[in-house]
Protein backbone atom coordinates (compact mmCIF):
# COMPACT_ATOMS: atom_id res chain seq x y z
CA UNK A 1 0.00 0.00 0.00
CA UNK A 2 1.51 3.27 -1.03
CA UNK A 3 1.34 6.45 0.98
CA UNK A 4 -0.66 8.17 -1.78
CA UNK A 5 -3.93 7.06 -0.23
CA UNK A 6 -3.07 9.00 2.89
CA UNK A 7 -1.63 12.09 1.29
CA UNK A 8 -4.20 12.71 -1.43
CA UNK A 9 -7.14 14.47 0.11
CA UNK A 10 -10.42 13.36 -1.33
CA UNK A 11 -12.10 16.65 -2.08
CA UNK A 12 -13.93 18.05 -5.08
CA UNK A 13 -11.49 18.95 -7.82
CA UNK A 14 -10.43 22.56 -7.61
CA UNK A 15 -10.89 24.37 -10.93
CA UNK A 16 -7.72 25.84 -12.35
CA UNK A 17 -7.22 29.14 -10.58
CA UNK A 18 -8.21 32.50 -11.95
CA UNK A 19 -4.58 33.67 -11.90
CA UNK A 20 -3.54 30.77 -14.11
CA UNK A 21 -6.25 31.71 -16.60
CA UNK A 22 -5.04 35.30 -16.85
CA UNK A 23 -1.48 34.07 -17.13
CA UNK A 24 -2.56 31.89 -20.06
CA UNK A 25 -4.17 34.83 -21.79
CA UNK A 26 -1.06 36.94 -21.19
CA UNK A 27 1.10 34.11 -22.57
CA UNK A 28 -1.02 34.02 -25.74
CA UNK A 29 -0.81 37.79 -26.30
CA UNK A 30 2.93 37.91 -25.59
CA UNK A 31 3.66 34.95 -27.87
CA UNK A 32 1.77 36.52 -30.77
CA UNK A 33 3.55 39.85 -30.22
CA UNK A 34 6.85 37.98 -29.97
CA UNK A 35 6.29 36.26 -33.31
CA UNK A 36 5.44 39.63 -34.89
CA UNK A 37 8.63 41.19 -33.50
CA UNK A 38 10.87 38.28 -34.48
CA UNK A 39 9.67 37.92 -38.07
CA UNK A 40 8.53 41.42 -39.06
CA UNK A 41 10.42 43.91 -36.89
CA UNK A 42 13.83 42.40 -36.16
CA UNK A 43 16.39 43.17 -38.88
CA UNK A 44 18.01 40.29 -40.74
CA UNK A 45 21.48 39.52 -39.47
CA UNK A 46 24.30 41.04 -41.53
CA UNK A 47 26.31 37.81 -41.61
CA UNK A 48 23.90 34.98 -40.94
CA UNK A 49 20.81 36.40 -42.67
CA UNK A 50 17.28 35.12 -41.96
CA UNK A 51 18.39 31.99 -40.17
CA UNK A 52 19.62 34.12 -37.27
CA UNK A 53 15.99 34.78 -36.25
CA UNK A 54 15.91 31.34 -34.67
CA UNK A 55 18.16 32.80 -31.97
CA UNK A 56 15.16 34.63 -30.44
CA UNK A 57 13.47 31.29 -29.88
CA UNK A 58 16.43 28.98 -29.35
CA UNK A 59 18.22 30.90 -26.59
CA UNK A 60 15.16 31.61 -24.35
CA UNK A 61 14.23 27.92 -24.48
CA UNK A 62 17.77 26.85 -23.59
CA UNK A 63 17.93 29.38 -20.74
CA UNK A 64 14.53 28.38 -19.37
CA UNK A 65 15.40 24.70 -19.50
CA UNK A 66 18.16 25.45 -17.00
CA UNK A 67 15.59 27.20 -14.81
CA UNK A 68 13.38 24.10 -15.13
CA UNK A 69 16.17 21.75 -14.07
CA UNK A 70 17.07 24.01 -11.18
CA UNK A 71 13.43 23.78 -10.05
CA UNK A 72 13.63 19.98 -10.42
CA UNK A 73 16.67 20.02 -8.14
CA UNK A 74 14.99 22.23 -5.51
CA UNK A 75 11.71 20.29 -5.65
CA UNK A 76 13.51 16.93 -5.41
CA UNK A 77 15.71 18.02 -2.51
CA UNK A 78 12.86 19.42 -0.42
CA UNK A 79 10.65 16.45 -1.32
CA UNK A 80 13.26 13.96 -0.07
CA UNK A 81 13.63 15.89 3.17
CA UNK A 82 9.95 16.58 3.91
CA UNK A 83 8.14 13.95 1.82
CA UNK A 84 5.27 16.29 1.05
CA UNK A 85 3.65 15.62 -2.35
CA UNK A 86 3.52 19.30 -3.28
CA UNK A 87 7.30 19.40 -3.83
CA UNK A 88 7.17 16.24 -5.89
CA UNK A 89 4.52 17.84 -8.08
CA UNK A 90 6.83 20.80 -8.65
CA UNK A 91 9.75 18.51 -9.52
CA UNK A 92 7.61 16.35 -11.82
CA UNK A 93 6.08 19.31 -13.65
CA UNK A 94 9.45 21.04 -14.03
CA UNK A 95 11.05 17.83 -15.37
CA UNK A 96 8.42 17.43 -18.07
CA UNK A 97 8.60 21.07 -19.15
CA UNK A 98 12.39 21.03 -19.00
CA UNK A 99 12.54 17.98 -21.27
CA UNK A 100 10.20 19.66 -23.77
CA UNK A 101 12.32 22.84 -23.72
CA UNK A 102 15.62 20.99 -24.15
CA UNK A 103 14.14 18.92 -26.98
CA UNK A 104 13.01 22.07 -28.78
CA UNK A 105 16.31 23.85 -28.06
CA UNK A 106 18.19 20.88 -29.57
CA UNK A 107 15.91 20.76 -32.61
CA UNK A 108 16.09 24.52 -33.29
CA UNK A 109 19.87 24.32 -32.80
CA UNK A 110 20.07 21.52 -35.36
CA UNK A 111 18.02 23.53 -37.86
CA UNK A 112 20.32 26.52 -37.33
CA UNK A 113 23.52 24.48 -37.52
CA UNK A 114 22.83 22.99 -40.95
CA UNK A 115 23.07 26.24 -42.99
CA UNK A 116 25.62 27.94 -40.70
CA UNK A 117 28.04 25.15 -39.80
CA UNK A 118 27.20 22.92 -42.76
CA UNK A 119 26.38 19.94 -40.53
CA UNK A 120 23.27 18.99 -38.56
CA UNK A 121 25.21 18.01 -35.49
CA UNK A 122 28.72 18.30 -34.15
CA UNK A 123 30.23 16.94 -30.96
CA UNK A 124 30.94 20.35 -29.54
CA UNK A 125 30.92 20.89 -25.73
CA UNK A 126 27.69 22.82 -25.36
CA UNK A 127 25.76 20.55 -27.75
CA UNK A 128 27.14 17.45 -26.10
CA UNK A 129 26.30 18.74 -22.62
CA UNK A 130 22.76 19.59 -23.73
CA UNK A 131 22.27 16.15 -25.24
CA UNK A 132 23.48 14.52 -22.02
CA UNK A 133 21.14 16.78 -20.05
CA UNK A 134 18.28 15.61 -22.24
CA UNK A 135 19.21 11.95 -21.63
CA UNK A 136 19.45 12.45 -17.84
CA UNK A 137 16.01 14.03 -17.53
CA UNK A 138 14.35 11.59 -19.92
CA UNK A 139 15.74 8.85 -17.67
CA UNK A 140 14.29 10.74 -14.71
CA UNK A 141 10.82 10.58 -16.29
CA UNK A 142 11.29 6.93 -17.27
CA UNK A 143 12.25 5.80 -13.78
CA UNK A 144 9.15 7.51 -12.42
CA UNK A 145 6.93 5.80 -14.97
CA UNK A 146 8.45 2.32 -14.48
CA UNK A 147 8.48 2.37 -10.68
CA UNK A 148 6.36 -0.19 -8.81
CA UNK A 149 4.19 2.56 -7.25
CA UNK A 150 3.60 6.29 -7.56
CA UNK A 151 5.26 7.04 -4.23
CA UNK A 152 8.34 4.94 -5.07
CA UNK A 153 8.53 6.59 -8.48
CA UNK A 154 8.53 9.99 -6.83
CA UNK A 155 11.50 9.05 -4.63
CA UNK A 156 13.47 7.50 -7.51
CA UNK A 157 12.83 10.51 -9.75
CA UNK A 158 13.92 12.84 -6.93
CA UNK A 159 17.19 10.93 -6.52
CA UNK A 160 17.88 11.12 -10.27
CA UNK A 161 16.89 14.81 -10.25
CA UNK A 162 19.46 15.58 -7.56
CA UNK A 163 22.28 13.33 -8.82
CA UNK A 164 21.73 14.52 -12.39
CA UNK A 165 21.87 18.17 -11.40
CA UNK A 166 25.05 17.64 -9.36
CA UNK A 167 26.55 15.97 -12.44
CA UNK A 168 25.88 18.85 -14.82
CA UNK A 169 28.95 21.01 -13.93
CA UNK A 170 31.24 17.98 -14.21
CA UNK A 171 29.72 17.04 -17.56
CA UNK A 172 30.19 20.62 -18.72
CA UNK A 173 33.84 20.81 -17.67
CA UNK A 174 34.70 17.40 -19.04
CA UNK A 175 33.33 18.19 -22.48
CA UNK A 176 34.69 21.74 -22.30
CA UNK A 177 38.20 20.30 -22.58
CA UNK A 178 37.57 19.73 -26.24
CA UNK A 179 37.63 22.63 -28.70
CA UNK A 180 34.49 24.70 -28.96
CA UNK A 181 32.77 26.06 -32.09
CA UNK A 182 29.50 27.15 -30.47
CA UNK A 183 28.96 30.92 -30.96
CA UNK A 184 30.21 32.81 -27.92
CA UNK A 185 27.45 34.24 -25.71
CA UNK A 186 26.21 37.58 -27.12
CA UNK A 187 24.11 38.50 -24.07
CA UNK A 188 24.83 38.17 -20.37
CA UNK A 189 27.96 38.69 -18.31
CA UNK A 190 30.24 36.89 -20.78
CA UNK A 191 29.17 38.93 -23.78
CA UNK A 192 31.43 41.38 -25.56
CA UNK A 193 30.04 44.92 -25.59
CA UNK A 194 28.17 45.74 -28.79
CA UNK A 195 27.86 42.14 -30.00
CA UNK A 196 24.13 42.62 -30.50
CA UNK A 197 22.27 45.56 -32.06
CA UNK A 198 20.10 47.43 -29.48
CA UNK A 199 16.90 46.54 -31.37
CA UNK A 200 17.94 42.89 -31.47
CA UNK A 201 18.74 42.91 -27.77
CA UNK A 202 15.36 44.49 -26.97
CA UNK A 203 13.50 41.88 -29.02
CA UNK A 204 15.54 39.12 -27.45
CA UNK A 205 14.67 40.33 -23.94
CA UNK A 206 11.00 40.60 -24.92
CA UNK A 207 11.15 37.06 -26.28
CA UNK A 208 12.75 35.83 -23.07
CA UNK A 209 9.98 37.46 -21.04
CA UNK A 210 7.30 35.95 -23.29
CA UNK A 211 8.82 32.48 -22.94
CA UNK A 212 9.06 32.96 -19.17
CA UNK A 213 5.32 33.65 -18.98
CA UNK A 214 4.58 30.59 -21.13
CA UNK A 215 6.89 28.59 -18.89
CA UNK A 216 5.14 29.70 -15.70
CA UNK A 217 1.73 29.05 -17.25
CA UNK A 218 2.70 25.51 -18.27
CA UNK A 219 4.27 24.87 -14.88
CA UNK A 220 1.17 25.96 -12.93
CA UNK A 221 -1.12 24.03 -15.27
CA UNK A 222 0.95 20.86 -15.00
CA UNK A 223 1.09 21.12 -11.20
CA UNK A 224 -2.71 21.53 -11.10
CA UNK A 225 -3.19 18.50 -13.36
CA UNK A 226 -0.79 16.47 -11.20
CA UNK A 227 -2.85 17.42 -8.14
CA UNK A 228 -5.98 16.10 -9.87
CA UNK A 229 -4.10 12.92 -10.82
CA UNK A 230 -3.09 12.44 -7.20
CA UNK A 231 -6.69 12.89 -6.09
CA UNK A 232 -7.89 10.41 -8.70
CA UNK A 233 -5.29 7.89 -7.52
CA UNK A 234 -6.40 8.48 -3.93
CA UNK A 235 -10.05 7.88 -4.83
CA UNK A 236 -9.14 4.72 -6.71
CA UNK A 237 -7.19 3.39 -3.73
CA UNK A 238 -9.90 4.37 -1.26
CA UNK A 239 -12.56 2.60 -3.33
CA UNK A 240 -10.51 -0.60 -3.21
CA UNK A 241 -9.51 -0.49 -6.85
CA UNK A 242 -6.08 -1.33 -8.20
CA UNK A 243 -3.62 1.53 -7.98
CA UNK A 244 -2.15 2.23 -11.36
CA UNK A 245 1.57 1.51 -11.14
CA UNK A 246 3.30 4.79 -11.79
CA UNK A 247 1.79 7.78 -13.48
CA UNK A 248 2.87 8.40 -17.05
Amino acid at each position, binding site marked *: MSSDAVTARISPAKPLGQTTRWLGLLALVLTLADLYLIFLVAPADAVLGQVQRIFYIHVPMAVLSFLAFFLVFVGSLVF*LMRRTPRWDRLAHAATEIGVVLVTLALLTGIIWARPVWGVWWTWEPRLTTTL*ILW*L*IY*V*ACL*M*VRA*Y*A*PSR*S*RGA*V*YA*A*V*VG*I*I*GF*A*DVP*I*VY*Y*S*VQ*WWRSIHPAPVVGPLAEAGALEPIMLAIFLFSLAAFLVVFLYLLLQRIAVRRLEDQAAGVRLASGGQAS*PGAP
Partner: protein
Amino acid sequence: MTQFLGTVAVLVWKDLKLEFRSRDILVSVLVFGLLVALLFSFALKPSPGEGARLAPAILWVALAFSGTITVTRTFVREQEQGGLEGLLLTPASRDAIFLGKALTSFLFMLAVEAVLLPAFSALLAAPLLSAGIAVTAVLATLGFATLGTLFSAIAVQTRSREIMLPVLFFPIILPLLIGAVESSAHALSGGGFSRWLPLMGVFDALFLVLCPWAFGAIMEE
Protein backbone atom coordinates in the same frame (compact mmCIF):
# COMPACT_ATOMS: atom_id res chain seq x y z
CA MET B 1 33.40 3.95 13.50
CA THR B 2 35.19 0.67 14.11
CA GLN B 3 31.82 -1.03 14.38
CA PHE B 4 30.67 0.61 11.14
CA LEU B 5 33.76 -0.62 9.27
CA GLY B 6 33.27 -4.01 10.85
CA THR B 7 29.73 -4.18 9.48
CA VAL B 8 30.94 -3.17 6.01
CA ALA B 9 33.66 -5.83 6.19
CA VAL B 10 31.14 -8.53 7.17
CA LEU B 11 28.88 -7.56 4.26
CA VAL B 12 31.76 -7.61 1.78
CA TRP B 13 33.05 -10.92 3.15
CA LYS B 14 29.57 -12.44 2.74
CA ASP B 15 29.46 -11.45 -0.94
CA LEU B 16 33.04 -12.59 -1.58
CA LYS B 17 32.32 -15.97 -0.02
CA LEU B 18 29.16 -16.31 -2.08
CA GLU B 19 31.12 -15.46 -5.21
CA PHE B 20 33.96 -17.81 -4.30
CA ARG B 21 31.48 -20.69 -4.06
CA SER B 22 29.33 -19.89 -7.09
CA ARG B 23 31.81 -17.99 -9.32
CA ASP B 24 28.91 -16.89 -11.53
CA ILE B 25 29.58 -13.12 -11.58
CA LEU B 26 33.32 -13.02 -12.24
CA VAL B 27 33.33 -15.71 -14.91
CA SER B 28 30.36 -14.34 -16.85
CA VAL B 29 31.60 -10.75 -16.67
CA LEU B 30 35.07 -11.77 -17.78
CA VAL B 31 33.79 -13.69 -20.78
CA PHE B 32 31.48 -10.81 -21.63
CA GLY B 33 34.34 -8.29 -21.49
CA LEU B 34 36.45 -10.40 -23.82
CA LEU B 35 33.48 -10.74 -26.18
CA VAL B 36 33.11 -6.98 -26.42
CA ALA B 37 36.80 -6.65 -27.31
CA LEU B 38 36.36 -9.35 -29.93
CA LEU B 39 33.31 -7.64 -31.44
CA PHE B 40 35.21 -4.37 -31.64
CA SER B 41 38.15 -6.05 -33.33
CA PHE B 42 35.85 -7.50 -35.98
CA ALA B 43 33.90 -4.27 -36.41
CA LEU B 44 36.87 -1.91 -36.58
CA LYS B 45 39.39 -4.31 -38.14
CA PRO B 46 42.41 -2.49 -36.63
CA SER B 47 45.59 -2.72 -38.67
CA PRO B 48 48.72 -3.63 -36.67
CA GLY B 49 49.69 -0.01 -35.88
CA GLU B 50 46.19 1.10 -34.91
CA GLY B 51 45.72 -1.05 -31.83
CA ALA B 52 47.24 1.49 -29.49
CA ARG B 53 45.01 4.29 -30.83
CA LEU B 54 41.80 2.28 -30.48
CA ALA B 55 42.72 0.51 -27.24
CA PRO B 56 41.42 3.17 -24.79
CA ALA B 57 38.01 3.30 -26.46
CA ILE B 58 37.67 -0.47 -26.73
CA LEU B 59 38.92 -0.99 -23.18
CA TRP B 60 36.53 1.47 -21.56
CA VAL B 61 33.45 0.53 -23.54
CA ALA B 62 34.09 -3.09 -22.61
CA LEU B 63 34.65 -2.19 -18.96
CA ALA B 64 31.59 0.08 -18.87
CA PHE B 65 29.36 -2.72 -20.16
CA SER B 66 30.86 -5.35 -17.89
CA GLY B 67 30.59 -2.86 -15.01
CA THR B 68 26.83 -2.54 -15.43
CA ILE B 69 26.54 -6.32 -15.40
CA THR B 70 28.63 -6.56 -12.23
CA VAL B 71 26.59 -4.04 -10.25
CA THR B 72 23.31 -5.51 -11.49
CA ARG B 73 24.30 -9.04 -10.56
CA THR B 74 25.44 -8.07 -7.05
CA PHE B 75 22.00 -6.54 -6.44
CA VAL B 76 19.84 -9.08 -8.25
CA ARG B 77 21.47 -11.76 -6.12
CA GLU B 78 20.12 -10.00 -3.02
CA GLN B 79 16.75 -9.39 -4.62
CA GLU B 80 16.04 -12.91 -5.80
CA GLN B 81 15.32 -14.58 -2.48
CA GLY B 82 14.39 -11.57 -0.39
CA GLY B 83 17.95 -11.13 0.84
CA LEU B 84 17.68 -7.37 0.64
CA GLU B 85 14.71 -7.30 3.04
CA GLY B 86 16.75 -9.45 5.40
CA LEU B 87 19.69 -7.08 5.18
CA LEU B 88 17.47 -4.07 5.84
CA LEU B 89 16.05 -5.78 8.94
CA THR B 90 19.50 -6.22 10.48
CA PRO B 91 20.85 -3.43 12.67
CA ALA B 92 23.34 -2.56 9.91
CA SER B 93 22.91 1.08 8.85
CA ARG B 94 21.85 1.96 5.30
CA ASP B 95 25.24 3.55 4.75
CA ALA B 96 27.02 0.34 5.76
CA ILE B 97 24.84 -1.72 3.42
CA PHE B 98 25.48 0.70 0.58
CA LEU B 99 29.23 0.83 1.12
CA GLY B 100 29.37 -2.94 1.49
CA LYS B 101 27.64 -3.43 -1.85
CA ALA B 102 29.68 -0.72 -3.57
CA LEU B 103 32.94 -2.13 -2.20
CA THR B 104 32.01 -5.63 -3.36
CA SER B 105 31.33 -4.37 -6.89
CA PHE B 106 34.54 -2.35 -6.78
CA LEU B 107 36.57 -5.44 -5.86
CA PHE B 108 34.83 -7.60 -8.47
CA MET B 109 35.47 -5.04 -11.19
CA LEU B 110 39.12 -4.66 -10.18
CA ALA B 111 39.51 -8.43 -10.35
CA VAL B 112 37.99 -8.47 -13.83
CA GLU B 113 40.25 -5.60 -14.92
CA ALA B 114 43.30 -7.42 -13.56
CA VAL B 115 42.61 -10.12 -16.15
CA LEU B 116 41.24 -7.97 -18.97
CA LEU B 117 44.08 -5.40 -19.01
CA PRO B 118 46.85 -7.92 -19.80
CA ALA B 119 44.50 -9.71 -22.21
CA PHE B 120 43.69 -6.47 -24.07
CA SER B 121 47.38 -5.52 -24.10
CA ALA B 122 48.10 -8.72 -25.97
CA LEU B 123 45.02 -8.65 -28.24
CA LEU B 124 45.38 -5.00 -29.27
CA ALA B 125 49.19 -4.84 -29.12
CA ALA B 126 49.04 -1.82 -26.79
CA PRO B 127 51.09 -1.37 -23.59
CA LEU B 128 48.12 -1.13 -21.19
CA LEU B 129 50.12 -2.13 -18.12
CA SER B 130 51.42 1.15 -16.77
CA ALA B 131 51.07 3.22 -13.59
CA GLY B 132 49.02 5.90 -15.39
CA ILE B 133 46.47 3.35 -16.56
CA ALA B 134 46.40 1.61 -13.18
CA VAL B 135 45.50 4.88 -11.39
CA THR B 136 42.94 5.66 -14.10
CA ALA B 137 41.37 2.25 -13.67
CA VAL B 138 41.11 2.56 -9.88
CA LEU B 139 39.53 6.04 -10.05
CA ALA B 140 37.11 5.08 -12.81
CA THR B 141 36.14 1.82 -11.12
CA LEU B 142 35.48 3.63 -7.83
CA GLY B 143 32.98 5.98 -9.51
CA PHE B 144 31.44 3.12 -11.53
CA ALA B 145 30.90 1.01 -8.43
CA THR B 146 29.49 3.90 -6.35
CA LEU B 147 27.00 5.27 -8.87
CA GLY B 148 26.29 1.83 -10.32
CA THR B 149 25.32 0.45 -6.92
CA LEU B 150 22.87 3.31 -6.31
CA PHE B 151 21.28 3.00 -9.75
CA SER B 152 21.07 -0.77 -9.70
CA ALA B 153 19.27 -0.47 -6.34
CA ILE B 154 16.72 1.67 -8.19
CA ALA B 155 16.73 -0.30 -11.42
CA VAL B 156 16.04 -3.73 -9.87
CA GLN B 157 12.83 -2.28 -8.40
CA THR B 158 11.47 -1.04 -11.73
CA ARG B 159 9.78 -2.75 -14.62
CA SER B 160 12.14 -3.45 -17.53
CA ARG B 161 15.11 -3.30 -15.18
CA GLU B 162 17.62 -4.53 -17.77
CA ILE B 163 17.20 -1.33 -19.76
CA MET B 164 16.67 0.99 -16.79
CA LEU B 165 20.22 0.68 -15.43
CA PRO B 166 22.10 1.70 -18.60
CA VAL B 167 19.56 4.46 -19.32
CA LEU B 168 20.10 5.95 -15.85
CA PHE B 169 23.75 5.12 -15.51
CA PHE B 170 25.51 6.01 -18.77
CA PRO B 171 24.48 9.69 -19.16
CA ILE B 172 25.55 10.47 -15.60
CA ILE B 173 28.74 8.41 -15.64
CA LEU B 174 29.81 9.94 -18.96
CA PRO B 175 32.34 12.47 -17.57
CA LEU B 176 34.11 9.61 -15.83
CA LEU B 177 34.11 7.58 -19.03
CA ILE B 178 35.51 10.49 -21.06
CA GLY B 179 38.14 11.01 -18.37
CA ALA B 180 39.10 7.34 -18.36
CA VAL B 181 39.44 7.18 -22.16
CA GLU B 182 41.42 10.43 -22.40
CA SER B 183 43.61 9.59 -19.45
CA SER B 184 44.36 6.10 -20.83
CA ALA B 185 45.20 7.58 -24.23
CA HIS B 186 47.50 10.03 -22.48
CA ALA B 187 49.27 7.22 -20.62
CA LEU B 188 49.49 5.11 -23.80
CA SER B 189 51.25 7.93 -25.63
CA GLY B 190 53.86 7.94 -22.89
CA GLY B 191 52.53 10.97 -21.01
CA GLY B 192 52.19 9.36 -17.59
CA PHE B 193 49.51 10.90 -15.34
CA SER B 194 47.05 13.16 -17.13
CA ARG B 195 45.09 16.23 -15.99
CA TRP B 196 41.92 14.16 -16.20
CA LEU B 197 42.81 12.26 -13.03
CA PRO B 198 41.91 15.17 -10.66
CA LEU B 199 38.58 15.60 -12.46
CA MET B 200 37.85 11.90 -11.98
CA GLY B 201 38.82 12.26 -8.33
CA VAL B 202 36.34 15.13 -7.89
CA PHE B 203 33.64 13.05 -9.55
CA ASP B 204 34.34 10.11 -7.21
CA ALA B 205 34.40 12.28 -4.09
CA LEU B 206 31.12 13.99 -4.99
CA PHE B 207 29.26 10.76 -5.56
CA LEU B 208 30.84 8.95 -2.62
CA VAL B 209 29.07 11.58 -0.49
CA LEU B 210 25.80 11.84 -2.45
CA CYS B 211 25.12 8.17 -3.21
CA PRO B 212 24.97 6.74 0.34
CA TRP B 213 22.60 9.56 1.28
CA ALA B 214 20.39 8.88 -1.76
CA PHE B 215 20.50 5.13 -1.02
CA GLY B 216 19.15 5.84 2.46
CA ALA B 217 16.28 7.80 0.90
CA ILE B 218 15.43 4.98 -1.51
CA MET B 219 15.51 2.28 1.14
CA GLU B 220 13.28 4.13 3.61
CA GLU B 221 10.07 2.70 2.21
